[in-house]
């Protein structure tokens, strides 16, 4: 905390309560435990209590774009107004159109019918496409 920029701290202090509210909206009927499990499968290390604290605006560290996108992806809420609101609050922007995001959510809902290992593989690929990242280590070549 000490080494974090003062400006960043002030900004996060201002927005963390509304961010928490939007995160809760985004989670909808999904349990915090289920979300924590889904995030873990994607490679995030967010415990159920961390999720609870983020939603209550009690976490001092700002939420990164990667965690924000991962959260929305696990909630199939990439096209939800709450996610757009979150991005705007945090000052992030993703280069995807609303139809693209609709299509991604549709794909994510579709993958819920697959066995868990298939779900995880597909979700990770979608996350990587969303963020423009590469990770070759997870693949057997």
């Amino acid at each position: 905390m000490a080494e974090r920029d003062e400006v960043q701290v002030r900004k996060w202090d201002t927005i963390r309560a509304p961010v928490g509210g939007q995160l809760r909206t985004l989670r909808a009927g999904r349990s915090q435990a289920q979300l924590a499990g889904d995030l873990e499968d994607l490679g995030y290390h967010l415990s159920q209590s961390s999720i609870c604290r983020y939603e209550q605006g009690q976490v001092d560290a700002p939420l990164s774009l990667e965690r924000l996108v991962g959260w929305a992806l696990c909630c199939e809420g990439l096209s939800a107004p709450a996610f757009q609101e979150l991005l705007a609050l945090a000052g992030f922007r993703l280069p995807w159109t609303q139809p693209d995001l609709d299509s991604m959510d549709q794909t994510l809902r579709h993958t819920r019918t697959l066995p868990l290992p298939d779900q995880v593989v597909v979700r990770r690929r979608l996350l990587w496409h969303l963020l423009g990242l590469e990770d070759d280590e997870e693949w057997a070549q």
Partner: protein
Amino acid sequence: MMRTSLDVAGLLASVAPALGRRAAAPLEAPDRRPGAASGAPAGAPPAGAPAEAWRAALLRRALEEWGVRCREPVALRALEAFGVVSARGVEVAVAADLPGPERALAYARCVARLALHDDHQFATWFHYRPGQAPPHLTPAERRTGAVVDAMARALLAGRPEAAPRDLLPAAPAGSAAASGLLGDCSRALLIRLHRASSALYWRSDSYQALRATTPMVRLTSRVHELLSGTGASRAA
């Protein structure tokens, strides 16, 4: 906004002749030596290489050369393959545990799916292992799967022309350039014939099989040449 464009016509043209030569070659005993399937052959089929492994390697290499990222995840259980087309690029993932014939067919289905891709900004598709397709698939999704499968099998046989031209990516001399025997009438007739053939191919498994037979491929090619004038221009 960046758009994803993939030259699937070029990709098909690059692999079809080699696949056709391989299909025409006499069958050989599969090479069961350890590691025999791992080599990626170049150009002509190497003697002694297992046919299906060679086909899969050829298709994967062609996809990669055309800019498609190919991956073989070990974790897929119900999916045989899936694909993602986005502004970040095109990628296909084929289950790592598929045996030779299924692996070649999986890659061919990916190529066929890309040929049918309608250039939306973002798209995904899923190909399921036998018996693993979810019950909620729509009739349209099932029909698309059947068409993709028929096109893939035609491609593996080195005969992409066994699918209707309208379903294949636009070739340089397409029906729009027709100037055959009766000019505009030929062109109109040709367009209608191609549309009817595509519609039938989409709806009927029987027509898919019929369309893939050698006499039918020959007949449709001759009709196309006659009405488009490509035969006359070639002769000239």
